[in-house]
Structure formats: C-alpha cells, structure tokens
C-alpha cells in the first residue's frame, strides 16, 4: 500500500500513525485534502518536512467546517501559532482529536479550548455569551442570554469564582452521556471524491 507513494517517508508515516488515531491510508487522504485547498502552495513532497501553513480563511471553507458556528475557534485551538493558520501537522492533529477514536478526556480538553474565546483558560461570562450567540444565531434576546449565562455559571461553577475552569467543565461534561458522540468531525469520504 505505502510502497508506491512518495509524499512521505515510511518513518514519517509511522510517526503519524503513532501520534494520531489514523492509519496510513487516512493520513495520505488527509494530505490529499490539504493539498486540494491550495495546490500552488502545498508541496506534494513532504519528505523534508516543509514549513507550509495555510491561512484560516482556506481551512474554514472546508465543507466539514463551513457551516459550523465554531469553525474559527476550532481552527485557532489547533493552530500552533494561535492565529489560525494550520500546518499539515496541525491539520492532521485537528482531525485526529475530533475523530471518533479520540478519548473523552482529550476531547474535553480541546472542547474547553474551543469554547474559551478569549483564551484565558476560563470560560467566563463573555465567552458564554459568545457561545450562546453562535449556537442560536442571535435569536435570543439580550435579557435571555444574560439569564442563561447566569444560570449556567450558577450550575456548573464548583469553586465559586464566577467562571468555569477546566475542572468545572469536565465535571459537567461527565454528566452528559452523549458528549463523546457529538464532538466528532468526520473527514467526509465522499467529499474527497468530489461528491
């Protein structure tokens, strides 16, 4: 299977397999998707580990992310420079963590990062307001949003500091049985064949 391809060395593919939840075939397919987004920029030959990053605007136009209200935050959470540009490693990382195979703890960490809009390691009231606006497409009135934010913090905040730390978030998530099945981003197989 891997003998004919010249994109990655065998060692690189092995490394990817060990560090992500993907197989060789899936990694090659992901490279195909990454390449498709910007064929002029992304090299076909990754054996030398080229330093190529795609900007956020391209990534969030992917069909898997296009309609997601949290697309910018998702890309930013996986971006190494924090600005939203993803190298191929970050790209693979994103799909790996959000795949079906990732464990709950890992997803919880990244979900927390996604909902933390101001990246201060807490989900404060402002973060909650932004989350709600994105979830409901601003259909709720300002009063309702404030009320919901207050109630959420009241319910989930264990230590009483007025915002949700990671421990509070994880504690709340543990009570939701379907969290694991919701935070999944599948690399759509049909899309790669231009369905």
């Amino acid at each position, binding site marked *: 299977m891997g003998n004919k391809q010249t994109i990655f060395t*065998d*060692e690189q593919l092995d*490394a*990817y397999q*060990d*560090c992500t939840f993907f197989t060789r075939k899936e990694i090659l397919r992901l490279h195909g998707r990454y390449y498709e987004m*910007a064929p002029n*920029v992304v090299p076909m030959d990754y054996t030398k580990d080229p*330093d190529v*990053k795609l900007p956020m605007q*391209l990534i969030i136009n992917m069909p898997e*992310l*296009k*309609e*997601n*209200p949290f697309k910018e935050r998702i890309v930013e959470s*996986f971006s190494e420079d924090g600005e939203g*540009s993803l190298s191929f*490693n970050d790209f693979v*990382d994103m799909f790996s963590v*959000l795949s*079906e*195979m990732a*464990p*709950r*703890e*890992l997803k919880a960490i990244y979900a*927390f990062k996604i909902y933390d809009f101001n990246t201060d*390691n807490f989900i404060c009231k402002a973060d*909650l307001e932004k989350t*709600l606006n994105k*979830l*409901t*497409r601003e*259909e*709720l009135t300002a009063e*309702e949003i404030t009320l*919901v934010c207050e109630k959420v913090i009241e*319910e*989930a905040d264990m*230590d*009483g*500091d007025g915002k949700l730390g*990671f*421990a509070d978030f*994880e504690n709340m*998530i543990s*009570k*939701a*049985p*379907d*969290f*694991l*099945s*919701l935070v*999944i*981003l*599948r690399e759509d197989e*049909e899309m790669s064949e231009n*369905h």
Partner: protein
Amino acid sequence: MSQPPSITLSVPEGSESDGQEPSPDNERALHTSFHQLILEQSSLIEAGLELELQERSRESPAYLAVPDARAVAWPEPGQSEEHPSYSPATLQILASMPSRTIGHSLGAIISQYCNRTARLRRQSVRPPLQQLCRTARPTLRQYDLETDPASATLEEKWRQLVKELLSLPPSQRSHVLLTMPLHLEEKRNLRRKVSGQRVTLRQHTHHWAPFSSCAWSKFCIVLGCRGLWYRLLSLLRAARPWHYALKQIGGRFGSSVLSYFLFLKTLLMLNFLSFFILLAFVVVPQAVHPPASVSPPPFTGLELLTGGGHFTHSLLYYGYYSNITLNDPCSSSPKGSVCPLAHPPLPYNLPLAYLFSIGVSFLVTCILLVYSVSRSFRESVRSSTEELAIKVFCTWDFKVIQRRSVKLQCENICTLLKELLVERRSRSHPQSCSQRLGHGLVMLLAWALALGSVSGSVLAVHFFLEHMHTVQQEQQAQDSGRWQQEAVLLVLPLVVSLLNALMPYLFNFLAMWEKQDSPVTQLYVAIIRNLILKTMVLILLCYQWLNRSVTCSTECWETCVGQDLYRFMVMDFIFTLLDTLFGELIWRLILEKKVKTKRRPEFDVARNVLELIYGQTLTWLGILYAPLLPAVQMLKLLLLFYIKKTSLMRNCQSPSKPWQASRMSTIFNTLLCFPSFLGAAAFLSYTIWTAHPSETCGPFRGLETIYESGKRWVLVLEKSNPNITWFAWVYQNLLENTSLLFFMSVALM
C-alpha cells in the same frame, strides 16, 4: 511561510446527509480517566499545601480539615486575581494547578504527563500517603515537578518526560503519547527521542505481526470491530425510517411535537412485534392448512369499513381458526377409529399455539413497556438537574455539516433554551388569600362540570347501546337486508368516536375559563379529564362485550366482538382524519381569510397522544378476537404519521407553551403501560379464565373455558412424562397474567 493564495473555493452543496449514529463508547476500557489524574494531582498538592500551611502556622483549623484543595486555595468570588493574603508559594501552586494550565502552558502539560508516567511506573512501589510520618512527606514533593519551583526550565521537563516514557512498557507508552494534548510536531519530536530506531509503537493489522502482549491484540481487535461497526452503521443509515422527517419536525416545532411522533414510532414498533409473533405462529400455519368452511360472500368495498361480509370467515377473526392439531391426519378422523400413523410429521397444536402466542406477545409488550417507562423515568430525573449547562455545551452536534441541518439545529437549541427559561421564570408569582379562594371555587366548579359531562356521555352511550339492541332485534325479526344490518352496527362506533372528538374541545373551554397560571398544571388537568372520559367509555364497552349482550349475526360471539373492535378502530381513524382536517386545515383557512390574523392553530400534543393510546388500547383488547388487528393498527399508524406530518408542516405553528420533553414522555409511557396495557391484560385474563367459548367456531370450541386447553395439555404432558411436574406448576402460575405481570413490572422498575 506561505503567502495567502487568492483561490476562492466554491464547494457545491451536496445532497442531504444526516448525522452519524454515536460511536460505541468503550474508551474507558482503554484509557484511564483524566479526572482521576486531576484528583490525584489535587490530593498531592493538597498534601503539599497542608505542609506549607503548617509550616507557616496558619491559625484557622478549618483549612486543614477541608478535603478539597480547591475550596481552600481558590479565592472568594468577586475578589480580584491578586490576593495579597496568600503567600507566593501558594500563588505558585495556584498558578500551576491543572485547571488553570490546561492547554496553554506547555511546561505544565509536560510535567503532568511526566508525573503520570512516573505514577504508572511506580504504582505498586510507592507507599501510601497515610503511612508516612510527617517528616518523610517533603520528599514526595520532589516527584511533583509542579510544586517544585526549582526545575522550571522546559528543556529539563522534556528530558524528564522522555526518561519517564522510556521506562514504560511500549503499550502504555503509546497510550500516553496518543492522549497527550500536545501539538503534533511536539509529539513527533517526543516520539523520535523516545524511539531512536524505526520502530512503530502502534501496530496495524495489515502490517507486521502483532506484539505478544494481550493489550495489543485487544487494541487491534477493537480497532477492527470499530471499523466494521462504522461500515454497518453507514449501511443502516439508509435504512433508518423517518430520521430526517423527525429531525425536521424537532428542529421546527420543538421537542413537544416531536414527542408525539416518537410515541407514534414506538407504538408502531410494539405493534410490529405482536404482529410478527402472531403471524409466525398462528396466522401462517392456519393459512397453509385452511379449514373446510362455507364459501364467503363476494368482496365489496364496505367490508373495509364494517369488517363483516367477506371478512367474517377469514384469517382476520377468531372464528376462522381450527381447534385441531394441524399436520396430524388422526385428529380429523372421528374418535374411536384406528389411527394408521403412530407419529405424525411435525404436529402443530393450533389452539395451544394461539393461546401461547397471545401470551408471549403480551409478555414481550409488557417487558418493553416497563423498560421504556423506567428508562424515561431515569432520564427525566437525571436531566432535571444541571440541564441548562449541559444543554449549552453538549447539544451541538459537530457532525452536522449541511446548511439546512445546521439551521435546524440552531432553531432546536434556541427553542430548547427558551423552553427552559420560560419554565424557570414561571415559578415566581404568589397570590393573595382571597384570590386563591376564588380560584379554588372556580376550579371546583370546572371539575364538577367536567365530571358531569363525562358521566353524561357514559350514560348517553349506555342508553344508545340499549336502543341499538332493540333496533337490531327488530331488524332480525323483520329480516331486513344484510347491508342495513351492518350499517346499523356502524352507528355505535360513530357515536363513541364523536364523543371522544368533541368532549376535549369542551374541556379546552373549561380550561380557558379556569385560567390556571401554570401551563404545566393546565396540561396535566387536560390530560386527566380526557383520560377519565376515554377510560369510562371503554369500561362500559368491555362490560357489554363480556356479558355478550351484543346481538350477533353469526353464532360466533368472539367474531362479533372482533368485528366490533375493528369497527371502532376504523371509526377512530376516520374521526382523527376529520379532526385533522377541520381542526387544523379549515381552522387555519378561517384564521387567515376571515379573522385575518397571522396566528395559526397549534398542535395539541396531549390530546393527540391520548388518541393514540386509545387506539392502541382497542388493539390490545381485540387481539384475542382478531389476531390480525395489530396489522390493521400498523397500517393506521403509518398513514397517520404522514397525514399528521403534512398537516403539521402546512397548517400549524410552533407551540408557545413550555414543555418538559423527558417528563412528558415518561407520563405518556406510564399512561400507555398502566391504564391502557394493564386494563387490556386484565380484560384478556378475565376472558381466558371465565368466558365460555362458542360451541361451533374458533380454536377453543367445545371447552368450558379457554384456560382449560392449557390445563389439558399440561395433564397430557404429565401423563407422558411424570418428571416434569415442575413445569406444570410453572405453567399454572404463568397464566396468572395480571398478578405476575404486576410483580414483574415492580421488580423491573
């Protein structure tokens, strides 16, 4: 660095694709909980903190007694980040706590995983905390890099982590590597350092031979199974009925209307099960060996309505079924004659099969109902706490990528949140004493009126019954046409269905006059009143059937009862259609054209669900007398789904009242189980035990009671094989349906 290319990607909107089913959650089998890690960390830090506090001789003993480090160390709400009252060491501890460093402090992550791997290695070796004397405790702090301010450099931490990883067995090493929340680049570097050669830590089935350790083969098996499971799911995705329709309804109208359609789907599945059991064991054997009977009259369209005529002597009714052992040539010959064959090939005792199939289908239905009641009860209890936070964070389905579906999801979440808010807001306005008294009087009066109208309807039905009997007897005396007789039989179901359709509107008027402040109470009151009406009418009808005061055109009273029930079901369906037509379509047209408002009628969920329960009760009541009645009910439910959905989409608006979906579905399932199913089971048991079957038709002809056939069979078994008396005892007790079912249901709950 890449220059931003000026390519605009236009992705065409593909065909509708639904969200995937959830993946099997067997993560916990493979990975240890991160929560566990936090607790371990906190307990260690707390041990260190305690020591620190003791060293600085803090005055408050409460601090030492608190088990949770977080409660001690974290500041009061409202205070600023800077806490001059805490020592620098405490602040350092605070700054390096897991919850504060997750994801954004590389050093913290590395230290954590270092400790984790160290712990994995030293789990059996390290002595428990309590056994150490106080002076020994400070040495533990060296293991905990977070509380030790000395080794602060990243490089040192990396080296430490690599060292720890190398000391782990390969299986655990890979697990730790996979589950670390680091960037992929860093993971690859780490991996390179950990394994200098070209060795894969994780094996794949199509690569080299797997490792000898059990964990690896288990991991591979799990991966393989998971792949198969997803392939199966993608196949099933196409086969799942009504998935997109239900999503559409839920997204547009909210969980209340959706619960009606889900309930309909549940009923459909229950009926399918009963139908399947009866089909396999009763209907098909009889169809393959048809009894010699009188040729039926030709088929005209009216049979679909009345259930008589061509259908009377058909598989639909009890009267058609034979009481012999099928496939046995001896049984058809008269008693006393010599039987040539000693052992018939595959004898099939139809009466027993009839009895047992009905028993088994009731048992299966009972188990499923009790299970669904207990499950929805548990869910409603669980989801009542901390709903809002979970709804905000754990409702968005990331798998949904189509624009329309995403829009539906947003609407759904919006409706959900609004519902929850309205419900919470309504718990706040108390009333004065005189107001309450007045309100109580009004309520009393309304209830008196409601109960009065119910009794009035029941009496009306009773007198109507009597009148119908006299009319029928006159007709039989005068020997009027067959169709006239059958048409007369339709009048009673018509009257009952009319009452069932019109009385709820009266109850609605009463409710409007009453003006309950809590909409939830209003809903409950409406449900109870409707339920009382339907129950009373059904009890009256059952009493009438059991007394066999129905005038029958044939000699088979069971077939007559079956036909009666068939007519009731058909009439119920017709009236539901009419109600949908007038209540929704015509009402909307009136509102639009005459009154000229934008308001549309609302879908009355409670009333519709009660109608479904009523229809299902009729099916269960009639299953003994007409084994194909579940098939009729299934057809009815299928048609109802599409009709109701179309009418809903075109004519109705989203409901304005709040709705607690889980609680309501518990209530509906309970109503289905207790008055409805249990009543039908009681009716069935009474019939089996005491009713005298007809002499000339049906599988139990000539016997004293239906139960007797079972008793005879047990006696035959005992004679042939005396060792199985225990089975006879079990059998005798098994047929005490109601009490056993009750105990079982209590046990299952």
